[in-house]
């Protein structure tokens, strides 16, 4: 019996050892700067890690790198630099980067935030990965104590590339499963994760990694080269501008793809969905092994409507439909600006609510994209188009002789 017991104990011990070595699953977000007063959207979620873009990886970019005034809440932070150069960064930038990193970390510390490492987001050509590895080793020498992370293009993981050298030089890497293929080949952003292909590829590198997945959408021209993307496009404003929905379908990743036409234009909108994100998360979990979690691109700012919020990703619960009534500061009449928080901002059907006023409404000026229909002297039925996108929809301005109270009388989400 003793040998058997010993074997059992050994096996159990091994199992425990394996369990204790398996990394903890973490959720991370990128936070990207795009406007001077960008404010991250509020959320009850507190991810394990946020990669905060602080600058670009060039001499002037490093000099101008700053810790943003506002960042999403998180348990840990990493400063990220982005490079668009069609080349690996020169090793001469390594000390400049180190200095910039120290500067940014001090700025963050003054805001009460400890920066635990840095990440480099470099779209290095695959054939020059060896040079990139050289650069990364130089950075490592300059900043030995900080966690060094890199993003990775899927193209790097082909045969006979130097990706192993690159990965060896860092503490973690984040392969990005989005925007992998040219847009004219496929309408979509998120790339399905083929477990049979990627699990052995990543495990062979023997380094912890996270998987970058898309939680963002995009509106772009439906045809032509290049497919111009409109960063500031809001679906609701497009509906108000005379665009009509021609087609709505799901792609292989579970994203919703809309075709919009109107005013001589044809646009394509790719929208993230709980399904597309959910599928990606499930696949990442199935990777197991050295995979330590998922990183979402990205945490939205308050003025961005095509990105799922952390709350939307974390939970099936939708916001409660609410009406905000704000004084429009008119005279001599009273006027109220009405805004509706949408329960499902990517609903496939229009959202219809009835607004009830405490007094007669004289007239309304409807907001673009929204349809109003009077149902009584003090009631208006409001229809917000399907796929509104925005979390809040401006309904318009209502005028009355004296100030009214407004409430939602009933809704049909």
């Amino acid at each position: 019996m003793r040998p058997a017991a010993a074997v059992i104990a050994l096996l159990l011990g091994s199992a425990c050892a394996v369990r204790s070595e398996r990394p903890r699953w973490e959720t991370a977000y990128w936070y990207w700067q795009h406007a001077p007063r960008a404010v991250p959207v509020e959320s009850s979620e507190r991810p394990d890690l946020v990669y905060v873009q602080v600058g670009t990886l060039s001499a002037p970019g490093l000099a101008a790198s700053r810790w943003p005034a506002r960042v999403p809440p998180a348990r840990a932070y990493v400063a990220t630099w982005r490079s668009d150069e069609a080349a690996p960064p020169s090793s001469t930038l390594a000390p400049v980067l180190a200095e910039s990193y120290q500067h940014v970390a001090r700025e963050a510390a003054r805001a009460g935030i400890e920066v635990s490492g840095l990440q480099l987001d470099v779209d290095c050509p695959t054939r020059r990965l060896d040079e990139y590895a050289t650069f990364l080793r130089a950075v490592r020498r300059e900043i030995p104590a900080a966690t060094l992370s890199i993003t990775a293009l899927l193209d790097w993981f082909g045969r006979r590339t130097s990706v192993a050298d690159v990965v060896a030089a860092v503490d973690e890497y984040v392969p990005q499963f989005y925007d992998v293929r040219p847009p004219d080949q496929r309408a979509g952003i998120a790339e399905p994760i083929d477990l049979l292909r990627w699990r052995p590829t990543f495990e062979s590198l023997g380094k912890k990694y996270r998987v970058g997945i898309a939680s963002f959408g995009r509106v772009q021209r439906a045809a032509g080269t290049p497919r111009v993307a409109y960063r500031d496009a809001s679906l609701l404003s497009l509906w108000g501008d005379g665009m009509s929905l021609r087609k709505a379908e799901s792609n292989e990743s579970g994203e919703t793809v809309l075709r919009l036409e109107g005013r001589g234009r044809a646009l394509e909108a790719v929208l993230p969905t709980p399904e597309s994100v959910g599928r990606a998360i499930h696949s990442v979990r199935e990777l197991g092994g050295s995979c330590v979690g998922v990183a979402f691109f990205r945490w939205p700012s308050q003025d961005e409507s095509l990105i799922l919020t952390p709350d939307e990703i974390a939970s099936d619960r939708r916001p409660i439909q609410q009406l905000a009534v704000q004084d429009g500061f008119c005279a001599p009449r009273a006027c109220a600006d009405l805004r509706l928080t949408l329960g499902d901002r990517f609903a496939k059907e229009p959202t219809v609510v009835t607004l009830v006023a405490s007094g007669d409404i004289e007239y309304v000026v409807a907001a673009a994209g929204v349809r109003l229909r009077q149902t009584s002297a003090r009631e208006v039925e409001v229809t917000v188009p399907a796929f509104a996108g925005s979390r809040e929809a401006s309904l318009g301005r209502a005028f009355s002789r004296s100030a009214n109270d407004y409430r939602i009388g009933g809704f049909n989400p």
Partner: protein
Amino acid sequence: MRKLAAALIFLVAGAKIAEACGPFFVLRAGLELQFWQPYAKTHWQLLGLPGKSKPGPAFAGMGNGGKKELEAARKTYQEVERWRAQHFEAWDQQPAPLLADTVAAARRAIDAALAARPSEVEAEELRLLKGKVTLREGESLLVMSRTKVATPVRAGPEAFQRAREEFAAFVSGAKSDVFRSEGRGWLARCHYLLGEPHKAAAIYLDELDNRSSTLDRRTLLQSLALLFPYNGSAAGLADHLEDYFDTPSHALYVLSLVTNPVVRDENERRSMAAVGQKALDAIERHKELFAKGEDSDRLALATMRAHLYRGDLRAALRIDTAGSRSLPETRWMRGIAYFLMGEYQEAEPHLLAVADSKESPERARTLSRLGLLVVYQKLGRPVDQLLMAFRHQSGFLDPDDSSEVNGEVEWFNAEWDYDASLLDLPYLLDIQLDDAALEATKQALARRPPIVLNDWDLGKTTAAYLVDYALAVRASRRGEYAQAAAIYEAIGVPARAARSKTLVRLAAAVESAPRQERLHRRFELASYLADNTERILFNDILWHRMQTLSFLRGGPRSYRPAVLSETEMSGLVENERKTRDAQEERWQAFLMLDGIVQEAGGTPFGRRAALKAIECLDRINTDRFEREKEIKEASARLVAWLAMPAKGGR
């Protein structure tokens, strides 16, 4: 009962379908609160964007021809431009050049071309190219990932300050209008990237005024839109307002922002409201801006719209320019202002002007006609109201072509709910107007060319025909069957004429019958009515199964519109009740038969009359008629009466 149930289901379903798929009809449009509003014009329409951009001359570095050194310089500039717009993607197979190399090559090529004794124009193009290379290099260095957009926050000042200086120097010395105009555009872009939006706006607005600008209007307006994006930065205008009130087009730009505010938080919303008021106050101080031609007219319209948007209807009316006074859009807004203030007499001429003007887009004319229906109702002019309804219906069924008039797009950019048959017309003919008004309308129609309409069932018909038919129906309802017969014969409705004559005979028989037979003659008259439902007292050519949808009481739009007073509302509801009673042959028959039952008592004849009366009550469509309670009680009473022992015993 089954037929009744089926009809009921059909009607309810029809109403639901109408509401869901609609609109199948337009009804009381002018009484709805979303009807009276200024047209929702886009920013670009306010500023007078032309329908299509015209292609301008090629920008510096993008053309063809000239010395080979110039061509070479253009090519290298295009490489810089290409790098910025379309540089490395993960799937690119070819190695992309380094930015520094690309820029250096462009500078060398430009210097070489300048040294090769170019012509004056070529030299200007090359000098402009120098600035463009500096600008593109700056943008390329700091372009954002995945969006390829340079914004002020990402722009390092040094690169763009250099570019700004180069362009400023170029513009001050340029001799070519085309290149100077282009240079100003790039200078404005530098101001934008350096966070100097007002300097940029000044240049763009001046280029908008410049008829020979090389920058097309759409580009300029897009650029202007970028200066004050949706984050409420337009509030910064408050500190620079006076700068913009030097020309009508500059002032118009500010007002267009004020009347189309999009803000993201409460602070920005409040500040935009304050900017709006300041802008309107500034307009008051600069009334001279309203006397400077076409731009002044647009400014006047924008100012009116701004006042309407702030609820100050009287102030909107005070805006008056000689040029804009007669514009249909101006008149529409005056009509709105007067209507909403309850000054209907003053609203009328403006709405008529829009309805009558060929310069008005079709939708504007439609709205004016629909608005006038309410104006005439409020002014107590039923004949004008009915004539306008005929005019509208005639226009709807045979509209002028188009959503464009004279190249101008429709003013109405919201959902268009008014492309449907006018249910007000049968309502006026059958319910709302009294007999005197119909007679007066008949006289008015006789004095003008026929108004021709296309009816779903009748095909082509005229307004006069519909009025006569309505008068004939009303005569029948009053029991004046001979008059009804005469009208039906005159307008060629032989079936109804024949039935009216039958009724004449039956009614005469009642009058002439000996006393003991009178009840039997009345029974025959009542039975004839009951057996001819919707063929005598009901106006069968007007409603197309939609009468119930039109009712203020009991219909799907059963509410008092704010524009109608309680008295007006109760008057219309009373008319609806009267019409429901008068048009229901079975109800009228029941009333006669009930009287017969009272008089005949428990005789076999009386019982026969009671059975017939019960049959009438059972077959009344209460969805349209209502009076469910009375019908039920009457039926129960008669049934109970029948259950009593017959008179004379058995």
